[in-house]
């Protein structure tokens, strides 16, 4: 049986479904990211688990116990808020000790556990500071320590890193991952940042308009997006109109052909001949300059023109023009510069890197 189970959870605000029939099973110690654009219902889902928002329908089960009607105080979950929500009138140590105080833990044990958890987040030296005198990153650690000290059954993180600058965010991601692994606390993270979700989570739940679009491991959801929304939301992708040739398992774009492989299609589906949509990630494209003097060789991809190239340090971002439609490619910065702007190129990719969807 799963550790945490969300069973057909929904929440309605003034007739609008913020969360629509959401079901999810989480195993103990798992790190789950709820990912989606703002307004997709991910935060509402988290608040229903925490108990701040009552579901309009469905159940929340934790270790078989029905949490749905319990007050937040009875659930024993740790929550880290986007705003951190530290108690400004208490010192760091008092903030962290608050939860233990509420549980009636003895003062000596309180002091010891607060010390331990502050040590873990690296704030032992600042135990007597007030939160308003601390940096965003430090406040974030206090919030994490305060949620972890009560040894929560689940740790809920609501966009915890979105108020930090990029460098600090990366550091905190590593640290969060490390802490979560060492404590083995089942964790749910709400985020709109796909790279954060992929860096941290064992599984990602991609949500849109209150519904789950896909649940899967980061690599899986990136490589085999279940819906066009997921493909677009997780990184960029290029879409090509293509045809499946009758009789042969091949897909045709312009005059270029690729064999269809099993991994091109969602599991257990097949394709009928006719018009299809082919999707290829920018980093999977290879670009070769066209030498106008020699005759074009067959099957070496589609023709396009370089519209612009932007240097981004470790890679080049190249905008191409293919029959008036934009195509994006990223090339690793491995030596010489890519083809100049305005020059004709051939764009190719390995057959296994494309995803085919019938129209």
């Amino acid at each position, binding site marked *: 049986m799963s550790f945490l189970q969300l069973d057909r959870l929904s929440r309605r605000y003034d007739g609008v479904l913020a969360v629509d029939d959401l079901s999810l099973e989480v195993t103990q110690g798992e790190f789950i990211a709820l990912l989606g654009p703002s307004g997709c219902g991910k935060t509402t889902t988290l608040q229903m688990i925490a108990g*701040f928002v009552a579901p309009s329908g469905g159940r929340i089960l934790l270790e078989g116990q029905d949490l749905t009607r319990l007050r937040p105080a009875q659930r024993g979950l740790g929550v880290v808020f986007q705003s951190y929500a530290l108690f400004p009138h208490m010192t760091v140590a008092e903030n962290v000790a*608050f939860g233990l105080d509420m549980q009636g833990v003895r003062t000596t044990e309180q002091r010891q556990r607060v010390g331990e958890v502050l040590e873990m987040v690296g704030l032992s030296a600042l135990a007597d500071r007030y939160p308003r005198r601390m940096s965003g990153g430090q406040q974030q650690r206090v919030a994490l320590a305060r949620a972890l000290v009560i040894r929560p059954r689940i740790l809920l993180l609501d966009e915890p890193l979105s108020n930090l600058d990029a460098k600090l965010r990366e550091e905190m991601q590593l640290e969060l991952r490390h802490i979560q692994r060492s404590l083995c606390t089942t964790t749910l993270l709400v985020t709109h940042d796909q790279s954060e979700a992929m860096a941290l989570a064992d599984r990602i739940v991609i949500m849109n308009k209150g519904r789950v679009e896909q649940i899967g491991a980061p690599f899986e959801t990136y490589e085999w997006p279940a819906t066009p929304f997921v493909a677009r939301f997780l990184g960029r992708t290029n879409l090509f109109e293509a045809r499946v040739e009758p009789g042969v398992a091949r897909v045709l774009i312009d005059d270029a052909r690729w064999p269809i492989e099993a991994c091109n299609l969602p599991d257990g589906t097949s394709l009928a001949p006719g018009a299809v949509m082919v999707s290829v990630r920018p980093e999977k494209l290879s670009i070769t300059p066209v030498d106008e003097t020699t005759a074009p060789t067959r099957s070496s991809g589609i023709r396009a023109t370089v519209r612009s190239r932007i240097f981004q340090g470790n890679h080049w971002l190249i905008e191409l023009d293919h029959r008036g439609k934009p195509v994006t490619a990223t090339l690793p910065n491995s030596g010489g510069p890519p083809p100049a702007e305005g020059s004709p190129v051939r764009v190719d990719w390995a057959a296994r890197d494309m995803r085919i969807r019938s129209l």
Partner: protein
Amino acid sequence: MDNNPVHQTPSAGQARQASRRLISTPYLLTGPALLLFLLIVLSPLAMTVLLSFHDWNQYRGIIEVFTTKNWLEVIQDDYFHEVLWRTLRVAIWVTLLTAMFGAPEAYILNRMRAPWRGIFLLVVLGPLLISVVARTLGWALLFGGESGAVNRALLHLGVIQEPIAFMFTETGMIVALTHVLMPYMVLSVWAALQRVDPNTENAAASLGAGSLSILGRIVFPQVLPGILAGSIIVFALAASAFATPAIIGGRRLKVASTLAYDEFLNSLNWPLGAVVAVILLVTLILIIVLTNRLVERRYAEVFR
């Protein structure tokens, strides 16, 4: 600051000059207003203080000599002690009552949903749009002796045998002043509540706190500066209020402000009135400054 003089570039002198100019700028900018303030606020005050040391005689009026007669009279006469103590007592009660009712009122208002919040905020602040005199006379209409509406109704219903004494009582004065000054407390606590992250309540709940613990240990400490700020405002206004004590207390039950008024305009003993006014002013300033300093010292660390 750079300690090594060798590193000082020629521009350091210019920079110092510029910074000196920057320091003087605020004084120049506030200068005109400061002059006006000196002219129309401080000079009458100074004149009042001077006036309190002049002599007065029923036939000759104010006599411009230096005497401490008025001060000694106020300091020695029990009648003046009683009035000053009553002023202080009334102000303290009004402050306590507005805090007791105003703070929860602001909290509840803040928790209300969209249309009701605006409507009830208007209900709370609405009285500010009506003259203090009208609001106080309202109380007089309800409780004024046997003819007051509430008293008459209760008498007829047999709930009470005698009309509730309201007019010319300290209780009446406290009740009416509390009503009149409530909006200031509500506004002050309301402002403090706007700075409270509502998620701190959720955070406390998730850590196992019940509603009472949340109110007492999370919300109350965070709005305490607002309550104290509101208390200072209400205390100052209650101690110096004139219209309400004048209507409810009348001639029989005087407070410092009505006493000073009577000395000025009825007895025409301006120097004695000036003494009362100066005592009221100095007491208020002392209490307010000390309280404010206390509040700031206690909360500077927490709320920057």
